[in-house]
């Protein structure tokens, strides 16, 4: 089974646009990492397309591609964050959660597969210093197998995308509470 990203459901947005939108008050921001044309790296974007169908008004979903410090600096001051990404080092299709709290200093646990210039913990740590407050939230990651060129997911990951959307929805619910 393969799944292709519906064209137009997960547009790449400009970082400038993201910054402008960040002035709105929201409870939870979902930052979706990945690339729609690099195999399983596109799984979070496909899950975001599912999520957008029933998101509450105080939840904002943003496709960020590679997580950049500017993406975190644009998060509203009181908002919680859910970062969704594909990962290696766990079973394909497996979904894991990592709290942002305590992540800094654990660079060895989160080596990015794709071309992040700085590892997640460094990006998050820098954002915390620049914001003057800790980032509150979670990383929700899905294990990937194939990150080659093309939009097709590996079968296990394709089957797990609804579960990834559910996991993100659950995380949002807990953070809003």
């Amino acid at each position, binding site marked *: 089974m393969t799944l292709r990203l519906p064209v137009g459901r997960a547009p790449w947005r400009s970082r*400038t646009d993201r910054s402008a939108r960040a002035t709105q008050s929201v409870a939870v921001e979902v930052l979706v990492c990945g690339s729609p044309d690099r195999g399983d790296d596109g799984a979070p974007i496909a899950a975001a397309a599912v999520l957008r169908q029933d998101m509450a008004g105080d939840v904002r979903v943003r496709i960020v591609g590679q997580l950049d410090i500017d993406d975190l600096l644009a998060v509203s001051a009181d908002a919680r964050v859910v970062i969704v990404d594909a990962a290696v080092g766990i079973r394909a299709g497996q979904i894991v959660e990592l709290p942002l709290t305590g992540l800094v200093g654990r660079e060895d646990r989160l080596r990015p597969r794709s071309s*992040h210039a700085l590892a997640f913990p*460094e990006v998050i740590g*820098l954002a915390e210093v620049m914001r003057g407050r800790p980032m509150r939230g979670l990383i929700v990651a899905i294990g990937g197998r194939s990150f080659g060129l093309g939009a097709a997911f590996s079968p296990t990951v394709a089957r797990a995308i609804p579960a990834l959307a559910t996991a993100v929805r659950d995380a949002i619910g807990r953070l809003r509470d």
Partner: protein
Amino acid sequence: MHDVNKLLEPTGDLAIDIAGLTRVEGEGSLRLQVRNGVIEQAHLEIFEAPRYFEQLVIGRTPDEVIDIVARICGICPVAYQMTAVHAFEHALRIEIDPAVRALRRLLYCGEWIESHALHVYLLHLPDFLRYASAIEMARDHRATVESGLALKKAGNRVVELVGGRAIHPVSVRVGGFSRSFRRAEIVALRETLETALDIALETVDLVAGLDTPEFVRDGRLVALRHPTEYPMNEGRIVSTDGLDLAATDWRSAFREDQVAWSHALQARGRDGRPYLLGPSARITLAGDQLHPTAAAALRRTGLAEEIAVNPYRSIVARAVELVDATAEALDLVEAYEPPDAAATSWRPGPANAAWATEAPRGLIFHAYELDDRGLVAHAQIVPPTSQNQAAIESDLAAFAPRVLDLPRDEATLRIEQLIRSYDPCISCATHFLDLSVETVP
């Protein structure tokens, strides 16, 4: 033996492993073998998995190649795109509009600004200010980090506008771009770039005053040189020992070899000698073509001669190039007039394509054979880091003896700082350092 205070044991025989290099792009490690205080072996081991891009482009059209090679690197995708597109256009005799040429140079400036700002402020500066990471540095030097982030953002904005998106841009096509840009769109970059230029000039002053280890390397530098502009998209391949080649002829002077300790091919001169690329090489070989604002900034430092021989001063070279790229981007924005068409039409066909451009980290060379249908039949992609690898190993072998009697942490910092001076881009990732010291039996 592990966890000793000195790198050099009383016997003088040991091996040093830096198992994971931090604040470089990709997965690599350093292994030094020392016997009787003499470095016997210095290996920069690259164990990032092979990525097979040269095979991925086989059977693809030139325009597909431009999109595919941009995926090789998230930090310098424009360099890959530019080298490929110039190679195809040169081989297929496609004349591009001067306005398109200017836009491409603007796009390349954006990548240089973004890449150099990231390296100077977040990857290299913590070494000089003696912080373990950019996070720790930011706690004490928030304004400095804000300056670096503002510069990086300015570069991002240029790439995003001209390239279509900030990471892995999509707008470059053989013959031009996928769309036209109105003057108002380009001029909208002016304010961002003016602010960035002020910061870039301050950056030169900041890094020129840093306490820097003394080290004089004796080796060949290689870069492009253009008769009228600082090298980026075009120029001849020149060296400090008199080489002067067309950009298409890299293979006549250099070759790639497989080495046992690295997944990356290692390039050397055909005479076997290593050579160094990058900002220091460019300033040494083409510094007279710097933008006047950058040339003045370089003169103020008084470090032009030291940049040529001390790799630790590459941070100054990079800062001067930040000024150059920002000032030139501003000039290009001011002078921009839209081309008559977004792209020149062209016909596919058989050709042997080759070209070299200057990535932020140094000269990058591509060669492609196009078959009768105009599809790629063979490809060779030579990134800067595979060319610098042998020079880095040679420099480490020369430098390491002077730090062997330092406490372990200090020696590790000095060695890592030296490696980071070359801004190696092994693939595109970053992780942490774990130093272990083991006595050779």
